[in-house]
């Protein structure tokens, strides 16, 4: 099984003619992801990587029956790109772009909700169902097909964790990078539920960090609804309050959102919390 993406994914790249869009489109295609087209306003009618480029997402969906889109559009225009995808009938929208004004994301998220589509990101590395499909910017070669579901707020930290999993013979069902912004699409609880229902997934790794209270909410959710074993890691135990640690969402405000609170809540819910990333595989076994 796996969640959200698999062999039935038909992907378009919004911003396929840009440097990053083009580079990663090629990587995804060579992984075996079914890339069916791309968009770039004004460049409709041309082709990149053997697939057609369209002016609008509407044209792309009509011609290619795309159901998934990945967005590499620059920050000032990215929220608009999310809304275009949702309005054109794309079901799963993955936004890689970093630095989108938060209020733009609030609006785009609400719009995606109204269109009953699903948003991942922004400011995320995307997702991978190893052996089947890669939609994102993750380095393909570190993943291995298997039964661990990975849900994360981070990028390279996820790679680090996946790398340890793979080296220890623990393959992954689906790995999802949710994004490091304060407001993003799918989050821990929705993804935990999907992993719980997914037949391929036997256990779950969640990688959280300081800021907000999503990990605390996830802990409560796990206690109530999740039967599969969950192992967690929380980054930012040494982060000073009031400082934004790289991710716009990673900030401890007025004493809340600390790593200590998150770890306590997770442990209280029966989740094993790793002290360092390399400890995760042994906690899963």
């Amino acid at each position, binding site marked *: 099984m796996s969640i959200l993406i698999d062999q039935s994914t038909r992907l378009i790249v919004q911003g396929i003619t840009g440097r990053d869009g083009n580079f990663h489109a090629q990587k995804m295609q060579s992984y075996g992801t079914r890339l069916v087209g791309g968009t770039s306003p004004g460049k409709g009618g041309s082709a990149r990587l053997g697939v057609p480029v369209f002016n609008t997402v509407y044209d792309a969906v009509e011609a290619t029956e795309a159901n998934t889109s990945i967005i590499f559009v620059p920050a000032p225009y990215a929220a608009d790109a999310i809304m275009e995808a949702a309005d054109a009938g794309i079901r799963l929208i993955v936004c890689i772009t970093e630095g989108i*004004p*938060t209020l733009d994301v609030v609006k785009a998220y609400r719009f995606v909700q109204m269109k009953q589509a699903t948003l991942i990101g922004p400011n995320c590395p995307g997702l991978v169902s190893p052996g089947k499909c890669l939609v994102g910017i993750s380095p393909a070669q570190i993943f291995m097909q298997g039964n661990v579901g990975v849900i994360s707020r981070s990028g390279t*930290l996820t790679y680090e964790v996946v790398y340890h999993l793979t080296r220890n013979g623990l393959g992954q069902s689906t790995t999802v990078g949710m994004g490091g912004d304060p407001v993003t699409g799918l989050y821990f609880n929705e993804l935990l539920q999907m992993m719980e229902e997914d037949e391929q997934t036997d256990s779950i790794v969640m990688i959280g960090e300081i800021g907000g209270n999503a990990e605390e909410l996830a802990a409560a959710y796990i206690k109530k609804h999740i039967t599969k074993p969950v192992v967690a890691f929380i980054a930012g135990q*040494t982060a000073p309050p009031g400082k934004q640690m790289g991710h716009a969402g990673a900030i401890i405000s007025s004493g809340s959102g600390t790593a200590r609170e998150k770890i306590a809540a997770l442990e209280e819910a029966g989740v094993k919390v790793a002290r360092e990333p390399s400890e995760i595989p042994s906690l899963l076994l």
Partner: protein
Amino acid sequence: MKIHEYQSKELFSSYGIPVGRQILCYTPSEAVSAYGKLGVLKVVLKAQVLTGGRGKAGGVKLAGNAEEVKRRAEDILSLTIKGFPVKKLIVTEAADIAAEYYVSYIIDRNSKSVILMMSREGGIDIETVARETPEKIHSFPIDPFIGLPDYLARRYAFLFFDSMEQVNALAGILQKLYRLFMEKDANLAEINPLVATSSGELLAVDAKMTFDDNARYRRPEIEALLELTKEEKTEIRAKEKGFSYVHMDGNIGCMVNGAGLAMSTMDMIKLYGGEPANFLDIGGSSKPEKVVDAMKLLLDKTQVQVVLINIFGGITRCDDVAIGLLEAFKKIETNIPIVVRLTGTNEEEGRRLLENTRFLVAESMSEATRMAVQTVKTNEKHSAS
């Protein structure tokens, strides 16, 4: 991004939200003449610093004559509040307070929307209210496509008041504050307290606003209001080069690709008994020029005794990262020990390239951290003997 109370009040005022008269002063004698200009008996002097807890620190004082104004101003201007020296204050009319309320807009991560928060418990620390008596705080998510039409503003205003005059006044304030919040890309707009005077008028007696970093590019008018500390300036310079940098007080400099991994690297340093000198995320790639810039940033600080470079080679393979590091360090003059930990694609090749060079090469994060912490301890022993 924070601004001062007086700046927030100026923004409020430009959106038609009632605030008391205020005069900004830098010296006690300016405060005395401000007192004269206001022409009222009682005034409040308020320190203008970019941090909370001014009241507790003695930064807000009442005064009832010129002599008192002078003395209070002297006291306030000699304060340092949470590391921020007080350089200016405002003199405002003391409001004739009948009741105090709390009103704010914030971006809520969980509902993924802007929410309006209101409480009849104004004038005190709202986080305490939220913790101890959460039922006293009302919060309403705002649909970005609907905003705050009259009927909603009125509905919320009825929570505080019965008199239609006050309901309409509050509804107007709620709508104006929402418009200000949206049009300036704020992530907080707070009135605490919103005061009802004994004659029934509403007045924002305090004002607090913070803004979204991601929207800086389209809000030059807010950018112009910012007063950055030296550390914030360094952080912004770093950002312009594609880095995220946060200053810390330790002596182990770190350079990492990716924010989550960078945070974990700091955590590991602490876990192994060391102190990180900074948080530094150099972003996805690790090109030589980037490494050179990042090293300059780290070596700018005299307390850095060792640098820990932790790179996950994903899209950029480890052997390329190693070549890049060797290239970069031809242009960097320093004797500081550099521990490098490379993991990911082609890691063995990468590490082999760095063997027998100026770098101390580690395989795992734990090993690298241990090496860095050890280096500092050895240094300290040397300087002690």
